[in-house]
């Protein structure tokens, strides 16, 4: 995969995702379960799109299809006009243009933070080790991570680990960041710090962000748009455009518009959560 060296302006033209009529049926023991049902969604280049739905609604299945961890049954997904996966080629090839930040974090515990950060470019042979180390140090310093380069991930706080993981992703100059409830395990205080840090990183890099969460407040605070998903099978139930201008900071949370948007959407989210609860879906 050829990647253009880009910095700044060019980035905005990359990262357009088109999800067309995607269906995913799990068929483990003959009993077909529909996880995603004719789901269509378009995400603009450089947009933060928040996917909200109750646990186990199938939103992670969608993320896995984009990332290339799972096959789709029908439909297709395009990235910048190129077909990632379709009925003919059900599984996308995982690659550094779409990087996942995992729910429980997936920094390699046997590599130091800096070794983790340079892993992508070195594996792809895109930079020499020395170049990658220079760039990695600079990016870590930029994200407020100076001083922990040679610590192992297990030695720093969970908030710092998440930041290192995002820096590791950005080192590859990805078109899309796929975040799967990355702040779920953090306490609310750390979470608020992480949100601002993520926005700060976003304002510098303007990468498309596909962010899965079940926290509506988080979704409205971060997103340009919020897609509220139905519970299994999963498809968009309501699309909300958050008309609070970026850059945002935490004062947004107490603004009148934020409260209005919360009110407007919480009913829809709550309804799906109730359905999921009644269906007794397992988390996943």
């Amino acid at each position: 995969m050829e990647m253009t060296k880009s910095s700044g302006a060019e980035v905005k033209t990359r990262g357009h995702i088109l999800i067309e009529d995607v269906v995913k049926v799990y068929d483990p023991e003959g009993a077909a379960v529909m996880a995603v049902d004719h789901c269509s969604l378009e995400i603009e280049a450089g947009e933060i799109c928040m996917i909200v739905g109750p646990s186990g609604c199938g939103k992670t299945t969608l993320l896995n299809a984009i990332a290339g961890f799972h096959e789709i049954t029908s439909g297709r997904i395009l990235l910048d006009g190129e077909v990632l996966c379709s009925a003919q080629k059900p599984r996308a090839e995982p690659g550094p243009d779409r990087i996942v930040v995992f729910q429980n974090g997936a920094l390699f515990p046997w590599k130091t933070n800096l070794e983790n950060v340079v892993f992508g470019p070195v594996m792809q042979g895109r930079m020499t080790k020395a170049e990658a180390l220079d760039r990695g140090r600079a990016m870590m310093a930029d994200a407020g991570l100076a001083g922990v380069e040679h610590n192992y991930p297990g030695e720093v706080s969970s908030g710092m680990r998440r930041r290192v993981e995002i820096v590791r992703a950005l080192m590859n100059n990805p078109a899309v960041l796929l975040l799967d409830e990355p702040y779920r395990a953090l306490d609310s205080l750390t979470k608020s710090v992480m949100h601002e840090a993520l926005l700060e990183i976003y304002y510098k890099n303007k990468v498309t962000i596909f962010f899965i969460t079940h926290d509506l407040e988080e979704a409205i605070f971060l997103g340009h748009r919020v897609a509220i998903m139905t519970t299994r099978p999963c498809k968009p139930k309501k699309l909300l455009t958050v008309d609070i201008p970026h850059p945002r900071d935490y004062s947004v949370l107490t603004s009148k518009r934020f409260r209005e948007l919360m009110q407007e959407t919480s009913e829809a989210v709550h309804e799906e959560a109730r359905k999921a609860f009644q269906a007794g879906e397992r988390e996943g």
Partner: protein
Amino acid sequence: MEVQAGQEHEARAALRESAPFRDASERLLERIAAVARLVRVEQGARIYGAGEVADDLYIVASGRVEHVFKREVGAREALKRIGPGGVFGWAGLLLGQSARLASATAVEPATLLRIPAEDLVKILESEPVEGAAVMDRFGQMIQRDFTVPTFLAQVRRLSGAPLTEEMSRFSLTMYRISLWVKSPRPYLMMIGFAIFLGTWYLAVEVWRLPRFRDMPGLTVVVKEWLSPNPTYGLSVYTAEYYQHIWVSIWRVTQAFFLATALGVPLGLLMGWSPRFKEYVFPIFEMLRPIPILAWVPLAIVMFIATESAVIFLAFLASFFATALNTMLGVQSIDESYVRAAHCLGAKRWQVFRHVIIPGALPFIFTGLQISIGVCWFSLVAAEMVSGQYGLGYVINTSYVMVRYPTIIIGMATLGIVGYATSALVRIAGDYLMQWRVRELALSEG
């Protein structure tokens, strides 16, 4: 208001009273006292305010100070009164902090020891072993005594020129040893040994209990073991003793390395490729439970030389333990790591090299520790059956020739040598898995 010099004694006493320096050496305290100054403050005097530059650290020698965190810090209890021995103003020691997180005011007339943070860090950095320990205790104290969120309360990692990667490994080991010596564990261990040996001595030589009467006693064995002219021909002064040890160690070494060289790759393949596992694992699981002694006749038929037969038997048990644990190690690796590596553009073999092998290492080394144990176990069994030298052979022939103390010498030597080899495997594992050692050290602390 500054207090005259010559009060170094008081400064050191104040340091000694505070949690981070409680166990510090006199030499370290002296160096810190030299850069510190005692200051007296009036009641109601403001010491510093939130947001100011965090350059000095304070220890309360007498009096009382009120310490109020600024709201953004998110401390659960914003207000805290700090009395003698208390430490405040430690923000300068935190990772990525250079401003005061709180304001401090004297609520009684107080005497404070004021230490410039940068000087303190320099002194701690020049003492890689003790410095790291003191810094660790600062971290613990901040987390224990102040209710700030943990992500804020990360103390700085001491670095600086002399602290290379090798040095920090060394200092970590030294620190752990010093912890061990200070803990009750070594003393409990000694008491355990004393009870064991004492019971042996009393049961055999003093009380002469039924069943124990004919056993060699502690003093007899020790005398024989350390005698220049041993009655039964084997002691630390005879060359033969070392020849037996050497032969056994050499056999174990060959068997162990052969088992590792074949068992680790086999286990990695079984864990990595489901298809390969389908071929091999059922046979593997059928062969594994067969006791080593059942292999003896076949080994003798297969290998004409007894030496090769003995090594083969020792190898076999060890091989199964290593391969099985390695396979479990690969299977224990979290799927996210493999997915993350693919996302980051790693090819299949790069994933194998950078994720599968290091991810399986903890299990592999657990396997190797078991493996070296069963290696000794089956070696001695094999040496008893056939062989001409070695510790198993010593034990068996001493029984036949009625040299009872020599049996015990052989057994005790086996215990010591076996323990030493097992420790070597553990040290090799710790060396290769620094990330794990550090994680464990932190979770203990």
